[in-house]
């Protein structure tokens, strides 16, 4: 089955050292450089590059397969309220502070609601409001594609995520339009029915325990003490 090992020794492997040959590298002076001049030149990622997620909210059935396969547990099922109406199923919320872009979640999605685009670029400052951008419910693929075609630089489609005190999130997209919804609660099971106060209180509570925010508070307190 196996081929006899073909072993070659010194006669083929050895080479002679040379004083002259290294100077031949000079010929590269007259060749075209390989450099991509980034601000002026662009290179596109390959088609089907594993970038940010998209989600068709209508198709998503909230089965939490994506949350189960995620190696980083970056996906959290979220109950949303759009225009005063609660969505029937929870939707995944992806945290890019965790995500490894393996897209196993896309592979296991039974309805094909979760998808991905080639957009790969997201950078923010280190403060808490900025890092809010890293945690989002993906938006419709058509919208992302449209934005990508419009700007063509594969950036994150959302420019700013505004969080209000009552759990309302406003996504300011790059073309100026906004998406507004309310997060009622987390988990697979729906939040408790007598809604008006409880879920919001829950989310608020949840948010309070968020680490960086706590840190911010501490920092502010420190500053006050210092002043």
């Amino acid at each position, binding site marked *: 089955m196996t081929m006899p090992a073909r072993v070659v020794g010194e006669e083929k492997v050895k080479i002679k050292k040379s004083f002259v040959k290294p100077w031949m590298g000079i010929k590269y002076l007259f060749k075209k*450089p*390989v*450099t*991509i*001049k*980034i*601000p002026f030149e662009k*290179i596109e*990622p390959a088609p089907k590059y594993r970038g940010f997620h998209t989600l068709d909210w209508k198709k998503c059935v909230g089965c939490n397969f994506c949350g189960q396969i995620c*190696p*980083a*547990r970056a996906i959290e099922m979220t109950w949303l309220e759009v225009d005063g109406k609660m969505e029937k199923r929870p939707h995944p919320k992806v*945290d*890019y*502070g*965790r*995500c*490894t*872009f393996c897209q196993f979640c896309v592979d296991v999605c039974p309805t094909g609601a979760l998808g991905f685009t080639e957009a*790969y*670029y*997201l*950078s*923010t*400052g*280190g403060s808490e409001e*900025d*890092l809010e951008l*890293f945690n989002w419910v993906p938006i419709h693929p058509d919208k992302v594609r449209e934005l990508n075609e419009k700007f063509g630089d594969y950036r*994150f489609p959302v420019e700013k995520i505004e969080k209000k005190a009552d759990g309302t999130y406003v996504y300011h997209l790059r073309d100026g339009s906004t998406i507004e919804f309310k997060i009622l609660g987390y988990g697979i099971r729906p939040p408790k029915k007598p809604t008006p106060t409880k879920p919001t209180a829950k989310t608020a509570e949840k948010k309070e325990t968020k*680490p*960086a925010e706590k*840190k911010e508070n*501490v*920092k502010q307190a*420190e*500053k006050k003490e*210092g002043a």
Partner: protein
Amino acid sequence: MSERKNDEFISYELKEFKLFEPLFRWARKKSLWIVAFCTGCGGIEMPPLATARYDFERFGIMPNPAPRMGDLFLITGYVTPKTLKRIIITYEMMQDPKYVLAHGSCPINGGVYWDSYNVVKQLDKYIPIDVAIAGCMPRAEAVMQGIMDIIRKIENGEADGWKRYRENYEWYRKNQDELFGEGWREKDAKRWLAWL
């Protein structure tokens, strides 16, 4: 470093120098030297960036082994406690206008190592981050964009991580001591650096 007081720091923003501030900013953004301390898997994207393909020397960026001459610290990936000690020492050795760029998911929130016993979650607790880029790994272009973000922030005077570190030094110090235990500087770091 502990005995140093805040007012002993050389202030770059004296009133007398206010006039020259734009000049300083211009000079800073045009000569960012990188501390060549690749702390995680992100180090693999540094060679393409530094060599002919992406060539960040076009922006006056240069990898430099000496932290005393560095301006920009790239945290290229996850940080283990053992590395974090070195990172903090290196960061404190850098001269004062200094900027930190955090690559990828791991320094922000632990990334895929969210339940690992040996990976630091939230680097921002220990040293201040100026710009964070998403991705695992971030593409070389994304790192490039992140560096350009830093340049833009320097221009606007928004990159103030070093100021935050100076002002909240006690808070950062407290977090570091909580993680490593009191007196880690005296115990460990003195072994590496006699002058600390």
